[in-house]
């Protein structure tokens, strides 16, 4: 079966069984290894991507369910043709939000959806937005700091514009 997706703005076509996990399609068929597998059962959130703007764990999504969808992965976050970090990524780098980095791609996608939704970046709201993404390194403190920093910069930028 052939499935058509738009991945990070680029059209992609894969001929694979319909029950193949979106995670495997991304990592193995499209070579986008930025999305990670941590548990394979939807508990850790390392494989989080955005499908039509929604946060999903790609290890639980068969590719047949996302035929025709727009998928965003960590590889699609950088700006200026991929040459510069997006403000969210820069905030993670400055605040110390990434340590071992294995949860980072999924964490960034959950955070990106949170920023896009434009909610008030309170501590509770941020923690709720990343509650499905486990991190074992940071105690979440600096991840929350990074997302708040990115949200505040975004609001300041929007205010100035």
């Amino acid at each position, binding site marked *: 079966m052939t499935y058509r997706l738009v991945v990070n703005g680029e059209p992609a076509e894969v001929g694979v069984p319909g029950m193949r996990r979106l995670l495997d399609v991304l*990592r193995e068929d499209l070579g*986008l*290894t*930025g*999305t*990670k*597998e*941590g*548990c*394979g*059962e939807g*508990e*850790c959130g*390392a494989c989080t991507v955005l499908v039509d703007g929604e946060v999903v764990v790609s290890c639980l999504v068969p590719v047949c369910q996302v035929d025709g969808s727009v998928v965003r*992965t*960590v*590889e699609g*976050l*950088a700006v200026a043709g*991929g040459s510069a*970090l997006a403000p969210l*990524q820069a905030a*993670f*780098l*400055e*605040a*110390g939000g*990434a*340590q*071992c*980095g*294995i*949860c*980072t*791609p999924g964490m*960034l996608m959950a955070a990106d959806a949170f920023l896009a939704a434009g909610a008030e970046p309170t*501590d509770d709201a*941020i*923690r*709720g937005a*990343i*509650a*499905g*993404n*486990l*991190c*074992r*390194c*940071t*105690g*979440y*403190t*600096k*991840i*929350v700091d990074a997302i708040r920093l990115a949200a505040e910069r975004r609001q300041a930028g929007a205010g100035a514009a």
Partner: protein
Amino acid sequence: MTIQAPAGRPAAPTPGHATPLPLRREGPAKLTGQALYTDDLVFPGAWYGATIRSTVPHARLLAIELDPAFDWGRVAVVTADDIAGRNVVASIAEDQPILVPVGGEIRHQAEPVVLLAAADRDTLREARRLVSLRTEPLPPVFDPLASTVVFAHHALVKGDVEAALAADGVVVVEATYRVGHQEQLYIENNAMIAIPRGDGGMTVHGSLQCPFYVHRALRTGLGLDDAHAQVVQAETGGGFGGKEEYPSMIALHAALLARRTGRPVRMIYDRHEDLAATTKRHPAVIRHRTGVRRDGTIVAQDIELVLDGGAYTTLTPVVLSRATIHAGGPYDVPNVRIRSRAVATNTPPNGAFRGFGAPQAEFAAEMQVGRCAEAIGMSPLEIRRRNAYRAAGVTPTGQVLHDDAAALEVLERAAEASEFDWVRARTAAERAGRGPRARTARGIGLALGWHGAGFTGSGEAKMGSVASIELTGDGRIRILTASTEMGQGTKTIFPQLVAAELGVDPDDVEMAPQDTSLVPDSGPTVASRTAMVVGGLLVHAARRLKADVEGRTGRPFELSWRDDARDHGPTRIDERFSPYPGRSFDDATYSGDAYPAFGWAAAVAEVEVDLDTAEVTVLSVVAVDDVGRAIHPVLCEGQVEGGTLQAVGYATIEEIKLVDGRYLNDRLQTYLIPTSLDAPRIETILVEAPFEDAPHGAKGVGELPMDVGAPAVVAAIHDATGAWIDDLPASPERIIAALAGIAPPGPPGMSTVSAP
């Protein structure tokens, strides 16, 4: 975040403090998805490997049976008969086989017996189901107190404990504490890929902490010389001790299959296998008998500590050593007796996990100090003030502490930042006025801890680690060490330290990859030793390089290194560890300087306990850690925050349950770790009481916060409810049992036996 110079000590400039701080070196690669972890590496033609494990805790292996209906020509099968070298996973003792041979003894569930590889996952999955093991059961041992197989034991004696306990005016407090397993739960599972080489050698790429441990294991198991075994660290998604020893086993398995197939073989564990088979924190049973006078002076500690090592020795003797030395906590007590042993049970081997025996021992020590305070009607803060080590204090191994003994400083900072006395008075008033309709209870708890920096005893002297700096012929400055980056910041602080010595920008200093064919053996990345020991070697090496270059050019290094490289060619400095002056340990008498220095930590936790469900919410933790020198405060704080949350998980929810020696909750749906919603607000205060013999003053930070978080949380549960919880984790079941005055659920970490 605050960094505070300890009281009474001038604030010295911190070597390596650049303004602004360098950003995480490999951060951009991690943030864009470009960083390559083991499972991201592509080797064309690679096969997939799998491990067939025992499913019984103790048995004789009679036969390995392959279903004759299957076409085994499509699959590579490796058994113990195919091992060219010695069938041992090289470690402290050589008791653990790479694969159990037919006729051999299976000592735990999940013990590797057969290896399979196939070109695709479907074939592999099918083949796995068609291998069966014929075994003859042997009686298993699950109770560590009943085990007669002793891996190691110690006895530390100072003064006369029995006389002190019997003296007039001494209140004797007794209790037994039990802690269970804890899983490291790095989010990247263990993973190794072995690539056979044309010259008969083997290259392994993998997720690991200690390249030269794996290197030695490959040499031993495959019968290779140094040059024919090569180990390369891939980007590593967390370790916490869990990738200290088991990677040797997985690398051997991948390499045996690679040798058999002549192809690269990928051995990538899924979460279930990683949880079921790899090492955990040791369960422990710790009995305390403490004598305390009414004025708060602790006069005697009698401690008996038993660690459950699981089925094989692994690193257990060293874990026991650290547990033993830390067992009394950071208190200067004149009469101490610590008797300890580590024993075998028929459960998967336990191993390294952040803290390495100290968190178990210090949980018990801190709960016991809290009990003593209650017994004499003193505040938990005051009893610690009275007994905490000061400079010139003498530890049970006879180590005399130096001026950097910062126990009181971290204690006072934590008490002040958390408003401990004020909050505790409030929680006491709430408790006193609590009616039967109260649904929640708040409490505050305090813990004080210490953590020996670097290897225990003569470990560093024996290891003789080497770290190198190279000025290449084309004018690049390159650091060569085996110290791995697994998120803690090695790749950022090493260039930062070297650049500060050389007067160059950190970006001018490169890091060579952690590849055993390129870098010297600077020891394993464990024991909070990377910043202190290897970082210290690099500072010395940088000073020598600078002197060499400036001696030749007559100009400052930062202005002349490129010219020097062009005119004089490459310069390489190899700096080998030599013991810190005046510090020595005698293994025979188990006495002397057990560690070059100690780091000191205090934590204050506030909790809310649901009085209906006994569920605990940890609201906040103030963590104060003396790290000697905070080379990179942002990364340093990250270590404290992460370690603190692991300790909160250890205190409240992380538990492995076993039946017949098998872990029951061997999936992420059932082994829970804290999420962002479970995590308390963590306030970190870094204290800098420098280690005078390290050129940069650093003592290490990785493990320190792990020692104090759990006892602080459980003390807070006691403050909220009045119940003492002696077993970890302080689960709702245990809290309810304590409140109801009934027997708690079975001891943590000990397997039950299924009904026949």
